[in-house]
Structures are given as C-alpha cells and as structure tokens.
C-alpha cells in the first residue's frame, strides 16, 4: 500500500473533520443562543429582577445544551476516526481485532484504569488501531461559566429603582433583559466558539490536530 497516499488521505480526513467541527460548533452556538434568547424574552419582570429559578434555568439549560453537544461531537469524532481508518487503510489489511472491537476494548481498559491513568495508557494501547488511542480520552465536559456578579449588580440596581418609581420599572426590566441577553450570548460564544484554548471548538480542533499527528506518526512507523 502506498504510504504517501495513505498520508494524503489522512490529511483529507483531518481537513474535513476540522471543517465539520468548526461549522457544527458555530451552528450549535447559534441555535443555543437563539433558544436562550427566547427563554429570556419569556421571563417576567419579577423573574428578571430576582434570583428566580426561571432565570437560573436559562443558564442551566445552556450548560446542558453545550454539554450534550460536546458528548455528541465526541461520539461522532470517535466514529469518524474508526470509519476513516477502515476506509483509508482498507478493512482487509487488518486481521483479528476489528476497529470497533479494538476501540471498545481500549475504552474498557481505560475505564477500569481510571480516567487519568487511562489517558496515558491509551497512548500505549494499539496506537494505530483504535479511535481511543488516536483521539485520546476526551474530557470535554464543557464548563460554561456565567459571570453572575456583574449581572447581579445590574439587577439589584434595577430592582431598587423599580421600588422608588414604578414608572421606570418598564425601562429597568427592558434594559436588564437586553443586558442579560448580551451577557448570555457572550458567555455562550466564549464557551463554544471563541479562539480561546478552552472553548469547545478549540478543544475539539486541538484533539483533531493531535489525532492527525498520531496517525501520521503511526503510518510513518509502519512504512
């Protein structure tokens, strides 16, 4: 089998997956922000001005959406590694353990060993044949942090103002709603798509870059 062609196809796979991750992260971020905006629009003035469950729910829902997205993306990348290795390198080349069995075994070993040790162990298990080994262990339980103090101060000021003059209640809640929306949008974008190393997008892109390095090294070793 032509090693350079394998390498070239692996680069195609990496390029396509990076593009997919980039697009899906941006699309998901947009969806989640829109959904959060609708929830914020539905909040009553009381919900906005107080530490209500409904207000907290906007944050919790966004966190949950992003965490679910990360898990789905992780699974899909794992599948993509397995499928692309079978497709590019030809399933017939590999006797014995199939990709899926290999991946499952490696993943089982990883769980038994515990997360941290397993990540190191995964690098040594069947480096060229399992998605777990190629991608490493994901720990993409995305953390969406909301900087609540800033927003809470704004809410407290608006609340105080509303007591002194009911006439400004409308203005205060509208202004607060806008600030809340901006705040939620910024948080979601920072968590999902920012160029910062901790965003979901950059973490997955980093994983893919690592996967590429590992696969190219494995191909070089084999040729």
């Amino acid at each position, binding site marked *: 089998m032509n090693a*350079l062609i394998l390498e070239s196809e692996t680069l195609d796979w990496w390029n396509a997956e*990076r*593009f997919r991750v980039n697009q899906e992260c941006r699309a998901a971020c947009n969806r989640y922000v829109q959904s959060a905006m609708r929830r914020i629009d539905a909040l009553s003035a009381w919900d906005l001005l107080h530490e209500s469950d409904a207000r907290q729910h906007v944050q919790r829902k966004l966190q949950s959406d992003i965490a679910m997205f990360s898990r789905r993306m992780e699974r899909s990348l794992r599948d993509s590694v397995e499928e692309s290795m079978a497709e590019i390198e030809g399933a017939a080349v590999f006797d014995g353990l199939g990709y899926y069995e290999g991946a499952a075994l490696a993943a089982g070993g990883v769980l038994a060993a515990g997360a941290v040790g397993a990540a190191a162990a995964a690098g040594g298990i069947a480096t060229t044949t399992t998605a777990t080994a190629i991608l490493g262990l994901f720990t993409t339980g995305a953390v969406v942090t909301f900087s609540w103090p800033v927003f809470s101060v704004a809410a407290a000021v608006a609340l105080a103002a509303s007591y002194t003059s009911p006439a400004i209640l409308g203005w205060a809640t509208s202004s607060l709603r806008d600030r809340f929306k901006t705040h939620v949008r910024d948080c979601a974008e920072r968590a999902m798509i920012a160029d910062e190393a901790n965003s979901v997008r950059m973490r997955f892109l980093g994983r893919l870059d690592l996967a*590429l390095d590992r696969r190219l090294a494995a191909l070089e070793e084999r040729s």
Partner: protein
Amino acid sequence: MSLADTVPILARVPDEILSRVAAGEYERIGMLVRDAASKKIVAHLQETGVTQSIVGQVLSAVGSVVPDPVSSLTGIGTLIQNEQIKKRLGVIETMMGGMQAMQTATLITSVAGIGVTAASTAMILSRLSRIDRSLEQIEAKFEESTAKREDWDLHRTLRRVEGHLQRLDEARLVRNPETEVRNSERALHDAFGEIEIGIRHVGRRESIDPDFLTQLFAALSLCGTAQIKGLIWLDEKERAAERARMLFGSYRKIVQDLPEDRLLHRFAGNDTAARNVSLLLSEVRHRMASVPSLAETLIAHEVHGRDYLDRLEAEVDEPLMLMAYAPEQD
C-alpha cells in the same frame, strides 16, 4: 491473468476500467487507479499532450480565467473543435469521478500533469498579474509595503519559473540537453522552496484573495511537477520518487497551515472558494503522492523515463493514458 498481462505499458484507458470506475469498484486517487475495497493499486493514469491542447483551446477561447458558464466539461466541450478529443472528454469525466465538473475544469486549467508544456504554463502564470492588482486594494494600509514586497518577490520567482519551464521544454533542441535539464530542475527546486515560503507568508494574512492563493498553488504545483518531469526525463526515477516525498512534505505543511476552516475565515466566509482551494490542494497532494509508485512501475517495466514522456507528449487522441501497475503489493 493480471491487468499487466493484458494492457500494454502505456495505452488508452480500457472500457473495462472505465466501467469499473463508473460502478465504484475502482476509484481514482491522484494519478492512481485502485481497487475501492482492497485499496490495491491497479494502474497509473497520466495526462497527455491532448490535455494541454484542451487547456490551450479553452484559455484562448475564454481568456485567462475560465468563467462559470464554461467551467463544466460540457461547457468546455463546446469550445473544442477537434471531434475526436471531444468524444474522449467523457474519459476525463469518468476517471476524475468524485469531483464536480467545475473542479475538473479548474484542475485541467490550473494544475496539469507532468506532460505540461511551457506554452500552457505561461498562460496559467500570466493570470497572476491581474490578480495582483486586485490584491493591492484589499491589503490593510499598514501591511501594504510588506505585502507588496512579498508579492514582488513571488513575482520575480514566478518569472524565473516560467523561464526554466520554457528551457525545460526546449531542452531537446539544444546541443547538451542533459545539462540544460539538470540546471532547470535544480533551479525549479529552489523556486519551489521560495514559492512555498511565499504561500505560507500570504497564508498568515488576515484576509486573502482566493484567486491569488489558487494561482500561487497552481504555480507551486507546476514547479513541483516540472522537477519530477525533469528527473524522469533524466531517467533518475529513484530521485524522482525521493523528490516527490520531499515535495509532498511541503504540501502537507501548507494544508496544516491552511485547513479549510482557516481558509473560510481568511476568505471572509466565502465557503465555495474555501472548498475549491481546499480540493485543489488535496488533488495536487494526491498527485505528488502517486509519483513514487509511478517511479517503481517504470523501473519494474524497465521503461526509460524519456520514452515514457515522449509517448505522452506524442499522443494526439487520448487525454488520459494508462499504465498497468507492476510491483508486488502487500
């Protein structure tokens, strides 16, 4: 009986191969045809002098840039006068399967194979001057002088490349062709390095004109392919394989610097342009990756490199020729 027993060393693409490619049993990658399931190489493809004739006719009919209405093979077909060649456009379409017609047309007019001549190369390179003018307008002011200097360096390199490609093409007419080819091959190798550096500089700009980048890739590819052609002409096949590995490494670095998601950003969200440039780069890389296998096959068939190239350039009817793969595979 293997394909090598039934197909002569260099022949028109047999109908059997065409139907297998159309059915998905075989697939083309770079200039290799292989079994889609086992990934074993079946044959090598090579563009011939006819491909250049298509390039020449298309470019002289529509100017330096192929517009959308004629970018498909059907559109190109309307511009070609030779009925025999027109009939064989279907072979290109089938063998380039998997690519959209637009990309096939871009490929034919931007990145020709080792049969490329100085005439079509000059036409391709001449597009750069027009693109350069539009580039000047999009550069941020504070970057302008640096960008212009880089572009000017690139232009000087490209003019040099054009000269060496012409000398390579005319080598057979001079008294000591081997020395001429050797000198040009060496100069093209240096120029390839300079264009690569240029592309990586341009690639770091916040905003890039897709046409400009496409032309730089086309120039890089021509420069790389011409070196391989020179080495094959000199019958230094092992060196050609080794050089291909080295040039492939450069293409790898470029794609790692400029994957499609980054291109999309640099092209201000123009996803079609990002896709096309990415496909072009992938095709160029696959083609370079096919060279070591071509060298092995020529060695196994005991074909002199010059005979192989002469046969390709002398072809008048077929745009693509095929050579059965010979070496044992794992």
